[in-house]
C-alpha cells in the first residue's frame, strides 16, 4: 500500500527523531563545520551515545510498556563499584566481578519489578525509592569496605578487550559495538518477533493485554531486569575502561536517557514508540552535547539547546502521532 510514501514515513514513531537529528546535524554543520562528522569527531559523540543508548533502549521499552525506571542512575555506579571492589580491592578474578555486577543488576530489577507488580505504586515512586536505596548501599558499603569513595581497578586480557577497551584506531570505545549489536537485537525482538507486540499492548491497555492472555506481570519483571542490568553493565564497562570506579556519578543517566527516549518518539504514557526512534534520539542527544565543542559557542549553552530540542521533539511527535491516528485511506477517520 502507501507505506513507503512520504506520508507513511511521517506517521512512523521515529519520524520526529529522524527530522530532529537532521536539524541538529545541519545546525552543527553550519556553526561548527563538519569536523564532528569526521572519524575523530564521530568517536566523541558515538562514545557518549553508546553508553547512553545501551541504557536508553531498555528504559524506552519500559516506557512503551507504561512504566519508568529512574533507578538506572544508581545502577551505573553500583555496577562500576561492584566490579572495582571485587576485582580491584579484593583482587578476585575479573569474571567474578563482572558476574556479580550483572547479578546485582538482575536482583535490583527483580525487586523493582516485584514492588511495582505487587503494590501497584507508580514505578516512578518505586524506582525513586530504589534509586536512593541503591545509592546508599553503594556509598555505605564502599566506604565500609575500602575506606574510600574511589576504587582502582586494573584489568588485562580478554575481559578488558570485551568490556572496556578502545577499538578501531584507539578512539572508539568497545561499548559502541555493544550498543550497535544490542540495538539490532532489540529491533528484532521488538519490531519483528511476535513478542514485541506484547510490550506495546501492555502500554496501550494493561487490563486488555492481560485479558488477551499476555503474561503482563512476567513481562514487567523482565523489562525492569533488562533496564537495571543494562545500567549495571554500562557502569561495569566504564570501570574496566577507566581503571577505576567512583561512588558518585550516574545520575546524569536518568534524565539523559529519558530525554533520548522522548526525543526518540516514545509516548510517556506508553503504547507508542520504536527502538529505531530511541536510537536516533540517543544520537541526537549525543551530537548536541558533543557538537557544541566544535562550535564557537560556550559549552554551557548545550543544555539550552537540549531543552529546546526536547520540547520541539515532544510537540513534533504529538503532531505526527495525531497524523498517524487520523490517517485513513478514505473518508471516515476521526481522531
Amino acid at each position, binding site marked *: *500500500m502507501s*507505506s513507503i510514501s512520504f506520508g507513511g514515513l511521517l506517521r512512523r514513531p521515529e519520524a520526529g527523531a529522524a527530522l530532529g537529528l537532521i536539524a541538529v546535524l545541519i545546525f552543527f554543520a553550519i556553526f561548527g563545520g563538519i569536523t564532528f562528522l569526521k572519524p575523530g569527531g564521530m568517536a566523541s559523540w558515538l562514545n557518549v551515545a553508546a553508553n547512553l543508548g545501551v541504557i536508553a533502549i531498555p528504559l524506552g521499552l519500559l516506557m512503551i510498556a507504561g512504566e519508568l525506571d529512574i533507578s538506572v542512575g544508581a545502577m551505573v555506579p553500583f555496577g562500576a563499584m561492584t566490579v572495582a571492589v571485587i576485582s580491584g580491592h579484593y583482587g578476585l578474578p575479573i569474571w567474578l566481578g563482572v558476574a556479580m555486577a550483572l547479578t546485582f543488576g538482575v536482583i535490583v530489577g527483580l525487586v523493582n519489578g516485584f514492588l511495582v507488580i505487587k503494590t501497584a505504586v507508580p514505578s516512578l515512586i518505586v524506582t525513586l525509592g530504589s534509586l536512593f536505596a541503591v545509592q546508599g548501599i553503594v556509598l555505605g558499603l564502599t566506604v565500609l569496605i575500602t575506606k574510600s569513595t574511589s576504587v582502582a581497578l586494573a584489568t588485562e586480557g580478554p575481559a578488558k578487550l570485551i568490556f572496556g577497551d578502545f577499538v578501531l584506531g584507539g578512539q572508539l570505545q568497545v561499548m559502541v559495538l555493544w550498543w550497535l549489536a544490542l540495538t539490532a537485537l532489540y529491533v528484532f525482538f521488538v519490531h519483528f*518477533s*511476535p513478542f514485541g507486540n506484547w510490550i506495546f499492548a501492555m502500554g496501550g*491497555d494493561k487490563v486488555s493485554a*492481560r485479558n488477551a492472555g499476555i503474561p503482563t506481570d512476567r513481562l514487567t519483571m523482565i523489562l525492569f531486569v533488562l533496564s537495571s542490568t543494562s545500567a549495571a553493565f554500562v557502569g561495569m564497562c566504564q570501570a574496566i575502561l577507566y581503571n577505576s570506579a567512583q561512588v558518585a556519578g550516574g545520575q546524569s543517566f536518568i534524565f539523559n536517557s529519558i530525554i533520548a527516549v522522548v526525543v526518540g518518539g516514545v*509516548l510517556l504514557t506508553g503504547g507508542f514508540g520504536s527502538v529505531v526512534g530511541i536510537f536516533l534520539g540517543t544520537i541526537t542527544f549525543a551530537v548536541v552535547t558533543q557538537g557544541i565543542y566544535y562550535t564557537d559557542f560556550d559549552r554551557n549553552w548545550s543544555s539550552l539547546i537540549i531543552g529546546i530540542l526536547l520540547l520541539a521533539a515532544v510537540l513534533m511527535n504529538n503532531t505526527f*502521532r495525531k497524523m498517524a491516528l*487520523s490517517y*485513513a485511506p478514505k473518508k471516515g477517520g476521526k481522531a
Partner: protein
Amino acid sequence: MTAPIMALRGVNKSFGPIDVLHDITLEVRAGEVLCLLGDNGAGKSTLIKIMSGVFQPSSGAIEMDGVNVTLPNPRAASEKGVATVHQFGGTFPLMSIGRSFFVGVEPAKGWGPFKVYDRKRANAIAVKAVQDFGITRIDDGDRLVGGLSGGERQSLAIARAVHFGARVLILDEPTAALGVKQATHVLRIVNEAKKRGLAVVFITHQVMHAMAVGDHFAVLIRGAVAADFKKGEKTREEITDLMAGGASMASLEAEIEGYMASHGGHPPQPAE
C-alpha cells in the same frame, strides 16, 4: 432441549462480609442474546467477572454444556470460549488494526528463534474478519485503532473475539459511550454474532438497546435476579421501572399520594 452453553446455578458471591450476588441462576443458549439489565451497583459487573473467570463464586456452580466447570482465571475462561468485550473495546489505540487484533496470538513466519511477526497475514485476516461483520469501512490493517470510531472499535473487538473461537460473548455496556448511529452498528453486530450461533450476554442499562436485540432478559437488583422473562413478555415501561428498583419506586409513589391526600393536595416539601 439441548443444554445451555453456559449456566449459573445458585451462584453467590461475597467480598468479606458484603454479599454482592445472591443465588443467581441464569442460562445462556446458543444463538440467543441474554440481556442483563440493572442499575449501577446492581452487581452486573461482578456477575460478568464471575462468568469470565476474574472472580470465583463463593458458592454455587457454573456449567458449560451441562458440565460443571471452574474458571480459575480469565485465560481458562477464554480457552473454554468465553470472551468479554469491555466498554472501551479492549483494543489498543496506538496499535495498528492487525497488531491489535492478534495481541497475544501473533502469527509468525520463519523458523526457530528467527520467527518474525507476519504483518501481511495479520492485517489481511483482521480486515476480513471485521468486514465479514459488515464494517466495510475498515480496509487497511495498518491503520491505528485509535483512529476508528467508537462503534468500529467495538466491532473490531467483537470480531476478534468471534475469530478466536468465542462461544459465549459477554459485552459489557458496549453501547454506553456511543452515539445513536454508532450504537446501531454495534447492535447490528450483536445480531450477526447471534446468527452465527454464539451465545451473547449483553449488559446495558439502555432498555431500548436491550429490546432491539434481546431474546431473553434478566433484571438484576441489589445482587439478585429480580425478573427473568422472554422477549415480548414485558413492555419498555415495565422494564425501566424494574431497573429503577420497581418495588421501591411504587412505594415512593404511594407515599407521596398518601401525603397529598392528608395535606389538602400539596406534595411534600423537598428534603433539605
